[in-house]
């Protein structure tokens, strides 16, 4: 990526020049705003995270952390931890247990720093009528009444982290890809916002930042991952990452932890002793829209 570097230093020089003019003319702007504009320009010219060396990853993480500090005076921690060997994450959802409380949805929003104003949610809970099979068309995914409602059952959907993800194929700039542990991630800084992946996803798993996302500073989850819950910007895609900032540290995603009924199970598919493997081996499991060949790593089962 030498050409980009050359371009970057060229423009950085210009920026420092412009910054110098700006600072000399302004009383309030000081070293901080100069540093901020330098950080912004280095960030603008950085490459695709997927192709970065560990050094480059560390450098961008450092810039992002410093940038947040300059803007808010607060510190965040940001990880660039890669996938572990012999790990392939999978998820199972117990339809018999889910009561539609939506604690998972709220936990997800808080954990992953989604825009509060547009109420962006990765998880949708569909309220289905008994005796109508899995009829998503007539299900209600936006209810505000007391649950569980008489004569209904509940099914949650989110990104299924397909093994053959159509969203990854269509991205013109490889801003989204499947990690070795099976998590489908997005580089929020590389995404150009064409929304082709959104059209390609059969599961409504992707969300777009139509405006600048806002999270009140005191509500920001400061335990972040570059590919996970770090703060996003306007005009880029985002989605469920199985809480990569948690799962790669050996913890369950926030939705699993928050679920009061135990309907959600998460784990390593390659570990024969894991709960998820027990479910796959002993329960009658199924996946949604299997005919599309996307191979979701998200199974449903019943007691």
């Amino acid at each position, binding site marked *: 990526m030498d050409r980009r570097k050359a371009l970057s230093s060229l423009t950085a020089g210009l920026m420092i020049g412009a910054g110098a003019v700006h600072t000399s003319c302004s009383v309030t702007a000081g070293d901080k705003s100069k540093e901020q504009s330098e950080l912004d320009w280095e960030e603008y010219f950085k490459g695709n995270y997927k192709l970065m060396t560990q050094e480059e990853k560390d450098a961008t993480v450092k810039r992002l952390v410093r940038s947040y500090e300059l803007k808010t005076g607060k510190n965040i921690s940001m990880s660039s931890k890669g996938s572990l060997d012999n790990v392939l994450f999978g998820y199972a959802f117990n339809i018999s247990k889910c009561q539609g409380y939506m604690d998972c949805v709220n936990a997800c929003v808080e954990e992953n720093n989604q825009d509060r104003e547009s109420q962006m949610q990765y998880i949708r809970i569909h309220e289905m009528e008994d005796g109508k099979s899995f009829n998503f*068309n007539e299900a209600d995914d936006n209810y505000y009444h007391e649950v569980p409602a008489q004569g209904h059952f509940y099914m949650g959907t989110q990104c299924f982290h397909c093994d053959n993800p159509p969203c990854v194929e*269509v991205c013109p700039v490889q801003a989204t890809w499947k990690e070795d542990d099976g998590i489908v991630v997005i580089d929020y800084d590389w995404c*150009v916002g*064409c929304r082709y992946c959104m059209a390609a996803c059969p599961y409504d798993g992707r969300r777009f930042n139509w405006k600048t996302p806002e999270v009140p500073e005191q509500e920001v989850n400061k335990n972040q991952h570059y590919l996970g819950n770090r703060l996003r910007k306007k005009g*880029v895609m985002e989605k469920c990452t199985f809480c990569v900032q948690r799962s790669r540290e050996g913890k369950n995603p926030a939705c699993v932890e928050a679920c009061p009924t135990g309907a959600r199970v998460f784990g390593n598919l390659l570990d024969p002793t894991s709960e998820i493997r027990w479910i796959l081996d002993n329960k009658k499991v199924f996946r949604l829209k299997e005919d599309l060949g996307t191979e979701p790593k998200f199974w449903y089962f019943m007691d």
Partner: protein
Amino acid sequence: METFKIGLSLIKDSFFNAISGRRLYNIWMAWLTALMLVGIYCYSQQLEFGLDITGMTDRVSWGLYISNFTFLVGVAAAAVMLVMPTYILKDVDFKQSVLIGEGLAVSALLMCLAFVVADMGGPARLWHMIPGIGVFNFPNSMLTWDVIVLNGYLFINISIPLYILWMIYIGKKPNPKIYVPGVIISVFWAVGIHMVTAFLYQGLQARPFWNNALLGPRFLASAFAAGPALIIIVLAVIKRFTMFKIERKTFNKIALIVTVAAQANLIMLISELFKEFYAPTHHSESAYYLFFGLDGKGALLPWIWTSISMNVLATLVLTIKRFRENHTLLYIACGMLFLAVWIEKGFGLIIPGFIPGPWGKIAEYTPTLTEIGVTIGIWAMGAFIFTLLAKTGISIELGRMRYKKTSDVVTD
């Protein structure tokens, strides 16, 4: 050095040619400029507040911009329907209209690119797509194929007319051995830009409305109807307002192309309707939404039925030779056909793809004023560019603009 001098002189001549014209021409260009300014203002609003100020949502994530983009790819491809007979079949009476057709293709392509950029969430990061400094996901992403074919087609359609006009400008005869190979490539390329754009949608298993083998061929048929229909209207305007002679025969021949394409398009429409409604499945719901509405929601109903009525009526008029050769009727039929295909291949194709959503949600889409402003601005830009290209081309062809070798071209 000589080439450089000629180029400079050509640019200078074109510039002065562009800023001098009749009153009506000045009003037309001023009007287009005003519309472009409106578009620029609306786009600046969009840049500031994000795509939030469009009508698009997570449920319907492509709207007016991508609809117009899709339609205009068709208009661009249609230029080839004039190119082929002129240069390859030596059917000379098309010759004057070819440069117009290629000018139309260039303007339509520039509009396509503008619509795609307008739709981007991060236009400042578009350099991520440039091979070498960015990552170009070729051949996996059909969007990268589209980038290649559209830019390639733009290059071809700029270079052929430029060569021909250049030669006429310096008073030489264009050498067919140089431009005919380019013309042949452009014929295949035009079909390519169309198929690739169709594949963009056709390849998505998530959207049954698009995931349909007829999409590509239908794109071609409707484009070869709407594109030449527009060319007929443009030629009529040029004939009326300039000294440029266009024979009656030329109109009749292009009209024949429009007719055959419109007929093929109707046959495919019938085939599509039969498949969706004879034995409707879960996958027919988007078509139900488009043609009859779902759950009492039917924002597209007036549009699609207007489109189908105009489509059928225009095809009928064109099919009857006596009507087709009556030029007043021909212009009306072409106008109707153009609008009908704009609806059908524009938002009539894109929006139902998202309705119902992957989980059956029926959320409708209505464009906002800002979005409409940007769209009108881009159309005005296309018309502006086309007018400039056509005016320059016509002046050179009519011999009004010639390179003056001796003097340094003094203009008062």
